[in-house]
């Protein structure tokens, strides 16, 4: 996995709540057998009309707005467990998603793809939406080492939570399988002495 470093970037605001993974990547695009190419269909039904033409009022089609950070409304990534949602977000070029609340499975999937979900307060989130409104040059800085996010328009920062293990994985570019494979003796020991064995 790619190592995660401090990012200062413009950002894309999507002030919609409960953005489910069917919106992030609709099911009909889940037929691929690789992890590539999903970025083109990120938010496909909000981004393109029936003929596949970009809808001008959707933020990803506004050339003024871009960046490595997506800022979205509360309860981002609910619904289906499809990791394709994380692949689509990463494939599009986002490395950070900011929201006041994430669905659990999406959060894990993002972390497993070196995309950092950053939980901020409702006030901080509203301020981010406000800062970028009419001002596409607004930036945020996300510092994983320090666990801080800064709205560079207001100068205000907040700290965010991440468990020490995942933080280390992201900073060093390690994944869980490396860890689990190094732990096989413990798995075999568990199988020998578990409470109840299903066979």
């Amino acid at each position: 996995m790619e190592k995660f470093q401090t990012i200062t970037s413009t950002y894309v605001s999507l002030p919609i709540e409960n953005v489910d993974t069917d919106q992030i990547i609709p099911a009909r695009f889940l037929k691929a057998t690789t992890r590539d190419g999903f970025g083109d269909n990120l938010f496909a039904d909000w981004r393109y009309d029936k003929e596949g033409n970009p809808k001008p009022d959707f933020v990803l089609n506004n050339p003024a707005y871009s960046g490595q950070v997506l800022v979205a409304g509360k309860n981002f990534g609910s619904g289906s467990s499809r990791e394709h949602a994380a692949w689509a977000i990463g494939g599009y070029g986002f490395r950070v998603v900011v929201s006041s609340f994430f669905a659990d499975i999406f959060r894990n999937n993002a972390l497993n793809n070196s995309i950092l979900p950053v939980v901020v307060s409702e006030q901080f989130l509203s301020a981010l939406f406000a800062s970028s409104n009419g001002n596409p040059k607004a930036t945020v800085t996300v510092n994983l080492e320090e666990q801080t996010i800064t709205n560079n328009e207001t100068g205000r920062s907040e700290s965010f939570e991440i468990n020490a293990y995942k933080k280390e994985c992201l900073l060093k570019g390690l994944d869980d399988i490396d860890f689990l494979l190094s732990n096989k003796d413990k798995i075999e020991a568990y199988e020998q002495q578990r409470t109840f064995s299903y066979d």
Partner: protein
Amino acid sequence: MKTLFDKIWDAHVVATVEGGPTQLYIDRHLCHEVTSPQAFAGLRARGLTVFRPDQTTLTADHNIPTMGQDQPIRDQISRFQVDTLAKNAADFRLTYYGLNNPKNGIVHVIGPENGYTQPGMTIVCGDSHTSTHGAFGAIAFGIGTSEVEMVLASQCILQTRPKTMRINFEGKLNKNVGAKDMALYMIAQLTTGGATGYFVEYAGEAVRNLTMEERMTLCNLSIEMGARGGLVAPDETTFNYMKGREFAPKGEKWDEAIAYWRTLKTDEGATFDKEVTFDVSQIQPMITYGTNPGMGMPIDGTIPELEDIDAAGKISFEKSLAYMGFAPGEKLEGKQIDYVFLGSCTNGRIEDFRLFADYVKGKKKADNVTAWLVPGSWQVRRQIEAEGLDRILEEAGFALRQPGCSACLAMNDDKIPAGKYAVSTSNRNFEGRQGPGARTILAGPLVAAAAAVSGKITQP
């Protein structure tokens, strides 16, 4: 004093990572064609085998047609994905219930009906409705594809321990109210993210009185309020359901298993991080009006007014109603609909078909309704035929299709056309879920039957 969840979780801890998640042992792993190919590719790239091949089972369900399954799949990309699953099963020596296998069906239908799902287990699948299996008193939850690869490689997964919530359903259900209505009522009360971060135990008189299939419907929908899973303590209902099923323990092993399973309940005095109680006499047959499962109301209910929605939610609420073609303050009872879908891992089991068939018996499908009746598995379909329900359905103007996930997520040809209203027994009313532009109204099988016959949103 421990909760049921704590007992099962603690029995599966292999190690705890310093400052991080728990390494949890997984008893059963289910895979389907959509969320597994990249995981198998990952194993190949790392030169790994499947660590415990006996503990993973594969089925094709999401991306398959529901007619003409004896023919090659026409959509080439879908066919390639299903073929990839078959190849992965062969290469890694895994049990696979592919198309035309008598055990084929939706992953969350075939696990329970074959006795593969058992109390006290940890069960995962790259599918959020894995929560279904919690009905047996198992910790069952959906995972992403990277996690599928972890389970294949190590039979373990790294997870942060969720908080616990108990939801008590007290009292006796009203007539024509079922598990789907309980779930839609609960999600409407708690909202679509209201149980995020929690694992739920369902308890109370009304839950005890549910059949296994009804418990599966309730647990299935746990994810729709954000919970990783929901479970019900195993009891005589559970054991009676399981006894004699193909992969259930037999003989002495059954006795040992039952003795262990009887210990799987929340101790008196154990505490939960959150506890909620519902009086089920308040629950009426439910429908949804919006684009997440938390936007539910009784059939005779009224869509909220814009001023009832908090400021941050107004944009989403208006977007949702615009998509559905509904207005704030509107009533939906009597509204004409176009499609009815009976099926999915939520309501594609034999009891759902019995309810539907019983309602439509001697009546006729409305001319304005296209109905898709999709059994959850071949076993369900065989049972429908054995009970003669297929003939009742046929006389009422309905035809049965072949098993699969079908219009629940419309990956195959079963897509609701743009702008059309579908009363659907599935689990998600998200924008585009049942096809681009499709407008989904979630409901239980009885409400779906009433809609199919009247052509409108009607009280069953």
